[in-house]
Structures are given as C-alpha cells and as structure tokens.
C-alpha cells in the first residue's frame, strides 16, 4: 500500500491551533487524555437479536427494499444463477468472486444460460464492467435488520461489480446473515481490530436497487446503479429448492 502524507503541514498547524483555542486548551497543554467515547448501548441501538428465523427476516427485508430474492441449496447454485441470468436476458457478465465453488457455479451457470463471463481486468479501471449486462458478487455479510448486502473490494473483487452493470446478483451463504448492523463491525478484516489489517478500500452496504425520488417524489429504480438486484441465499435449514 502506498503511504500518504499531509499535503500542507502549515495549514494543519494553523487549523489545529484554532481547534485547540476553541476547545480552551492551554499553550503547551499537549497531553490532554481523551477519555473513551460513550458506549454504543446495545439495549438502545440493537433492533434485531440473534433469534431464530434470521434468514427469513433478511429475505423479507431485502424484498421490502426492492431486491429480488431466491433460495437454493449448495448443489443448485449453478442452476439458480442460470435461471436469473436467463430471466434478465444477460449476455455477458463480470464477477467479483474468489476462486472456489461460487465462481465455478457462476461460470457453469453462465454457460447454461448462454452468457459469457468477462474478466473485469480485461480493460482498465471499471471500463469492462460498463460493457456487460450483469455483475455477480459474494458478500462479506448480510444484515437481517435492514435487508442489506455488505460487499467489499480487494484483489479478486472489483469496486464496480455491484454498481456498474444494470443487474447485480449477490450470492449470500445463509450463515453469513447477521442480525443487526451492530454485529458487522465485529467481523475480522474490516479495520475494527487494533493491529489487524486496514479496512477494505471499499466496503459498501447495499440495501436495494439504485433509487431516486428527486422528480416529484416518485420512486424510480436504476438511476445510476443497477435497476435490479437479485439475492441468492444459499443453504440454511429447509433450503433445498
């Protein structure tokens, strides 16, 4: 990772001087200890607990947010993806998936549906994804409380897969569903640990298709991002379809 810098140390010094003056800090009074911030009180902020039926709750909320939901077992992911690709008339798509069974299912499902899997690295930046009909991603987690998908970027996941193509298909393993937003920050690798890895370059909470109500308050989907978001929940109890 390239290391950044402060562009104008003089400006920083002056701004910090103003801040300290406004806070009533005295000259040379550098060692003010900052107490811990107020605790994020679970009993106030948590809206959904880890009770039974969390996956069903997630599916209901995702549907209410305007996403199209599907359930399938491990063995039928390929078929489910093929059906979604076919129904959307997808001819080409990019993926943001690690090596493994999900990407294999996407490749095979694409073949079944007559859709070509295009490498997002084939053109610079996000350009390849501007050309395709769909993006398929996995998720870091899903949140039952708000019907939210949490998608990240890294060496195998583009920043564009969930936002650039007109259709987004998210693969959500049932065991990745968390009850509440509060539970997200406890996951490893999101930057929350003291000495862990840095937060991802892009971590996006997605709660529906791209929406606007700017024209007379009328709800329109697909303004900049996808007009359709398909959520494929894989596995979990009573999941075989």
């Amino acid at each position: 990772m390239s290391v950044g810098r402060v562009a104008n140390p003089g400006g920083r010094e002056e701004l910090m001087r103003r801040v300290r003056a406004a806070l009533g800090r005295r000259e040379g009074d550098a060692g003010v200890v900052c107490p811990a911030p107020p605790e994020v009180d679970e009993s106030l902020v948590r809206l959904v607990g880890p009770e039974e039926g969390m996956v069903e709750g997630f599916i209901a909320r995702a549907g209410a947010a305007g996403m199209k939901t599907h359930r399938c077992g491990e063995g039928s992911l390929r078929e489910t993806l093929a059906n979604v690709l076919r129904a959307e008339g997808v001819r080409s798509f990019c993926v943001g998936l690690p090596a493994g069974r999900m990407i294999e299912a996407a490749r095979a499902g694409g073949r079944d549906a007559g859709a070509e899997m295009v490498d997002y690295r084939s053109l610079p930046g996000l350009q390849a994804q501007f050309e395709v009909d769909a993006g398929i991603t996995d998720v870091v987690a899903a949140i039952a409380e708000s019907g939210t998908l949490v998608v990240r970027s890294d060496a195998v996941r583009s920043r564009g897969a969930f936002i650039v193509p007109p259709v987004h298909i998210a693969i959500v393993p049932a065991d990745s569903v968390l009850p509440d937003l509060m539970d997200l920050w406890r996951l490893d690798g999101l930057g929350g640990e003291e000495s862990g890895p840095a937060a991802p370059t892009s971590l996006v909470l997605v709660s529906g298709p791209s929406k606007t109500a700017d024209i007379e308050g009328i709800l329109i989907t697909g303004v900049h991002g996808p007009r359709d978001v398909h959520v494929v929940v894989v596995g979990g109890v009573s999941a075989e379809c």
Partner: protein
Amino acid sequence: MSDPGAPAAEEGAMSGEEILSPPLPYRMGPRVERAVRDVRLRQFVENAAELKHRGRVNACRDAFGERYDAVRQLAGRIKQHTLDHLDHYLDRFTAAATAAGAVVHFALDGAEANRICLGLAQEQGCRLVVKSKSMVTEETRLLPALEGAGIETIETDLGEFIVQLDHDAPSHIVTPMIHKDRKAVARAFVRELGAEYTEDPRRLTIIAREHMRAKFRRAEMGISGANFLVAQTGSLVVCTNEGNADLAMGAPRVHVALVGIEKLVPRLEDLSVFLKLLARSATAQPLTVYTSIITGVRRAGEHDGPEELHIILVDNGRTELLREPTRELLRCIRCGACLNACPVYRKVGGGHAYGAVYSGPIGAVITPLMKGLENYADLPRASSLCGACFQACPVHIDIPSHLVRLRRELVSRRVEGLGKRVVMRAWAGGMRSGLMYRAGARVAKMVLRALGEGGAQGGMTDRRWITHSVGPLAGWTSERDLPTPARVSFREWWRRERGGRGGEGGVGRPRGGT
C-alpha cells in the same frame, strides 16, 4: 398568484449564485412574499415536506419505539464527545488516513478548499470532473470555481444535476430540487441535452443515466463529500440512494473528498447509531441504498479504484462554532429533518427564502453565525419557536434555544431597529407593573376598537375585525384580520363578578360568551 400554466420554480429567474449569495445584509421579505404568492410552489413544497416529515416520524417510531429519545441523545453524546476532543480525533484520523495512502489537506476557508481542489485538477490535466452531492462544496461554491477555470464539472446526483442544468440553486439539504416539478425537468433536458420532450419520470431518469454514464467513463477526477469520517480507520463514509457516489469515487483515477472537520466519529461501531438515524431521519429508510465506507487508495493486487485519494478537511468557520455556547450545532448530520418539520420552511416555499446554503431551522442558526448576524438578522426571527425542529433532530440539538440566544444578541448588539427596541422596551415596562399594564391595556383597547370596522360577527356579540391598519400593524393586517379587544376585559369582568375575591370552584361564564 403565478400563471397556473407557468412553472413554479423558473419564475423569478434568479441564478443559483444570486439565490445562495445574495447582496448583504439579506432581507427575507421579498423572496418570502414572492413564494407565498406562488400557490403552486408553496403547496408543492408543503406537501413534499409534510410527506417526508410523517415518514420520518413513522420510521423512527417503528424502529425504536419508546427508545427513540434515548437513542438520539446517545447519538448527540457521541458527537459531542468527538467535538469536545476534536484535536485528538483529527490527529487520529489524519494518521489512519495517511497510513492507508490518502493525502490529507487542511483548508482554513472555502476559498482555500477550492484552490486546493482546482490545483489538483490542473496538476492532473483534468478536463472532466464528476461530482457527487456535498453540502460543503455548496458552501465553498466549488462548482463555479472549477467551471470558471474551464474544467467541465458534472453534478451526478439527479436532483443536483437538474439544478445545475437550470443554473438554479438547491432548496433542500437532502432533496435539492424539492421546488421543481417534472415539467421543469423535461424543459431543461430538451434545452440542455437535446433530449426529446417527455414528462415521464422514468424516461427522464433514463435520459439522465445515459448522459452521465458517458461522463463517468471519461472523467479523470471524482469529487465527493462525506457524511462521516471514522477516526479509527481513516475512512470516509458516503451515503447515497442513487449510487452516483460509488461511480464518482470508484471510476476516475483521482478521488478528491471535501469534508467539514465536524464530520468525525471515533469508531466504526459508532456508525451503527448514526446510519440508523440518518437514513430514517432523512428519507424514512432503514439505511440509504448505498452506504460506502472508503479507506485509502488502490492497493497492491487491486485492479481498480483511484490511484490517488485527496481528503480536504475544511474549517470555513467551523472552529468559530466550536467555541461554546455554539459547539453542539456542529453535531448536525445534515439529515434535513428539521427543515421538513418546520412550519416556516414549509410556508415560505422551501430553502431559497433563507438566502444561503443551509436553510430551515438549522440554517437560521448557523448562517448568521457563519456569515454575520448583521447580514442575516431576519433568519433567527423566521421561527415561531414551536420546537418541532428540536423534536425532529436525531442528534438532539436544541435549535430553539439557539434562535432565542441570537434574538437576544440582535437586541443587545442593537441590530434591531430603533422603533422595535422602543416598542419592546415599552412592552417590557408594561409587563413589569400592574399599574402600567392596566394603563397600557386600556390605551391599546381604545386604539384597536377605534380601528375596528364592520358589524357584529359570529357569536362574539360586539367583536369587530380590523381588516386594514397603518403603522406597525399594517404588516399583520395585510394577510389576516385582527380581532378587536372585547368591550369588557377579562380583568374588568372578574373584578365585577367576584369583587376581586376570587371564590372557590369554577369560573362563571363571561357575559356575551357562549
């Protein structure tokens, strides 16, 4: 009233620049008068604001129920803690952000923020910039600064884009074109984009999408604001429903974020509180469709994302507000709930009447503080002090008490005119002594009854109405009628009926009452 066929919003034909940066000192009167007479505009804004207000109330009640007040107090405490230790959190944020590869700039005022941003664009040889919605860039007037230097800059939030095409100004923090209808959009697209005329909101949206997609693909720089900065991780948090910020921040080679220093929160986990409140307060959603947490630049092995991230931390008057007693105003998360709740904002046709970037109750407080009380003396008075804004605020800012404090300052700094000061002093004298009160009331009754005209109306036997008057009362009676005082005052009646003794039990009915 305007011609019903004419568009509500294009009337007046003031440019965005004139609307947001009027000649000072600014007087609300003329704009309010125009807006009040434009019945369509007023109803349009009123309905939109009312709808959003009710949506917020329901969403917060459904989610938090009885806990709601405690949750917003918690949010207020977390923000207050961050502001109380802003030096600490600014240092922490800077360390984390630079470690993740960002270049952090400090801008003391808006002009400096614009200069830094323009300098970066010129350094990179940028000809096209895509911009996501940001209040701080409205405040610094970044768009004209870039366009003036010959850099094509596109607002990509649909509402801001339409406002930009029309050379208009946003009239709401969250929904900038709350004052425009679909006809105005259709005309702008025909005129500026050469599109075919359509009033179908879906087709209008597709026209905008196609136009802007081409821009996202070509732009060399993306500009955003941020709803929050996370000190712990050096992250920017950007909330949109359209997803334009993800394209603006992700597609170009360079990302520049302009952010006010008050946007800091300590930790990722604090976002649980703020994200839940922000989306519900702004648009009655559990979360905005896209909540993007952006940390640093493209890393080894990553194929896309910007190679450079510049974060410009903007003061522009904030360190003045950071002093007490105004510090709590910096908790504001720009959700717009106080605008939607405010009976004055709704009645004056939205934000333009406030003559500045921040409108509504929060604008009525921070605009005079940032741009001079003498320049915006009308704003603290444009409130009935009903308290709806305080009730709506997700970070528990006591806006009415700040309005009252500013009014007190208007008097003590003699910004108020001599006439008003004399009248108010006489009033205060009258209210302090029984003798003066009785004498004053008698004079007032005689004058007001003399002004009354017309005969007895309704059930009030001798009540007459003042429909026109002169002097200080002219303003009041130009819009409504003033009832004349009753012939027998309550005090006189009480003395006569009760002999000044005030017996036990209920009070008898005044003569002439129902």
